């Protein structure tokens, strides 16, 4: 696949990239915020911190979505974001334990 012309340039793949960015990106940003919520300053029970955490999701999520279009293909976006999710959620579970 490496030497075919299809993969040498960025493919549009609008639908697959957008779907990956919206759903896997949201999942990833919630996971990242989750790590901050548990192990960041104040811990999980700090009053009002939940509002701050909720606000944090959208910038992270939308930045991930914005840069999803840099992936060469939609498939690659799916694979990369899924792997990132697995890593982040493993950390989240470790932090919570």
């Amino acid at each position: 696949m490496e030497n075919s012309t299809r993969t040498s340039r960025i493919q549009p793949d609008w639908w697959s990239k957008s779907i990956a960015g919206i759903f896997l990106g949201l999942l990833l940003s919630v996971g990242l915020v989750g790590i901050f919520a548990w192990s960041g300053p104040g811990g999980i029970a700090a009053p009002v911190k939940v509002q701050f955490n909720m606000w944090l999701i959208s910038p992270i999520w939308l930045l991930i979505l914005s840069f999803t279009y840099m992936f060469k293909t939609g498939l690659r976006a799916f694979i990369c974001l899924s792997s990132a999710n697995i890593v982040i959620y493993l950390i989240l579970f470790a932090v919570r334990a």
Partner: protein
Amino acid sequence: MKIKSDILRQYQSVHIWTGIISGIVLFIGFYAGSLTMFKPAINAWAAPPSDTLSSINTAQFDSLIKQASMQYEEVKKGFNIFLNQKEHSPMTWYEKGSARELSLNDQLWHASLDEKNQLIAHKTNPSALAELIDQLHQTAGIAGKIGHEYLGVYILGIAAILYFLALISGVIFLLPSLAKTFFALRKNKSSSRFWLDAHNLVGITSLPFHLVISLSVVVFAFHDPLYGSLKLAVYQEQPLFPAQKHTKITYDISQLQPVSSLINQAQNFAPSHQVIDMTFMNLNNPRAMLRLGMYDKGGLMRGPITDYIYMNPYNLKITNSSLDPSDEGIWTRAVATFFALHFGSFGGDMGRWVYFLLGLGGAFLFYSGNLLWLEKRRKKFKKDNLLPTQTRACHLMASATIGICFGSVAAVSITMLAGKWLYPWVENINSIYLPVYYLIFLSLVAYAFIQGAAKSAIAIFKICAIATLAIPLTSIIAVLMPSLGLWSANSISTLGVDLVALAFGLCFIYGVIKMKKRALYGPIDSIWSLSSHIKKEVSFSCTEKIQ
């Protein structure tokens, strides 16, 4: 800065598509949002000055509350107090409705004291105009509800996601040429160049504002699902919001702490702030609560106008606030910043004016973006000398841009105007606002699609100009002919409404002149050209000249 060309092409597509899908609703959101910077002024402008009773000294409030609560049963539940605010009566309470929910049939009592310290009170239908403009800002005028939220709020939430994508992608594909063309406003090259330069300049200079607005709109629209996802994935058995503890004691309004000690308590808690209004709620049950609006002239405030302190008005205990100065309050203060950055409630009046202009700049961004989209798809003269027909998509998009964006602008102006002129003739002025707005808006949208963009643009801009200029004119007529039952500006803020309308009106006149010029003397192979009936002949002679 060098970026690979295929990345640039990707982001150009992202920018174009996200922009064209979300631009029109965002235009309405931004234009109406700019106006909401001055909500109290608009409400004061829309209500006859006789509605508002004169203010009293802080020391007189206890007597006012006592007299009002003895005569009016509703007061025992709750009421509002305004300290030295010209736009408000010193004391108000709702007989029907509440300040929290938008309703067109609210009945509000105003109360004050006369020279002999005796209660004076009367009932009004408070103007819902500013609240409706706010609603237009939040929903773009899209009616309907899903659950407890307006459909339009969700649509603007989705538009805000697209808008964030448009901002990031716009910056990415602008980066390579940014250093060269940032401050360039090439007026002489071509009109589309000028629009492009202006679009880029406004977009880049107000980028932080736009990032903040887009992100906060996403939160405003989708906070429930976002909290839901946090609960599901992060908090799980941890409660998101710990339950508030309430006392079980029921007090009576006669046990209320004196207003001066309530103010003192708040002032001690927030020395840099000033109490400007107090809302007493649930006074006759255990959930009794006082919300104090705390204004800080140069500071940053969480609410649209003020910070808040929540207090039990019977025992002076502060239960909550948006300006908690303790170490634990860091999250409260951080979240307050996000709100303030959307509401423009920092930096005092100066901050409001800057936000007002930034909001208008945003509306310009979406309008100019659509113009550029149309220009890019314009079919130009080819070698065969025949006048090319523009695509259907271009015609529809041009009509939608003109009809929806400026149809809404015209409808807002006419609604404001109708609110004044029809006031003596209808029982409740709030009942006319929505019918007038939608009648004008929908007719102008229909007109734009039927007549085409070129013709309707001039007509709709004319309507915008006339209606908007009629707003200050009404004030002048009110002074000259008092028998009509109109009223004129009576304070700096209401005069401000008239002056802004005057400035807008002049801009619309300028727009009409430019549009006429473009329609008659601009390139005839353009969607904006009005020389269509003579196009065939002209195209011949014109192309001859070109050759």
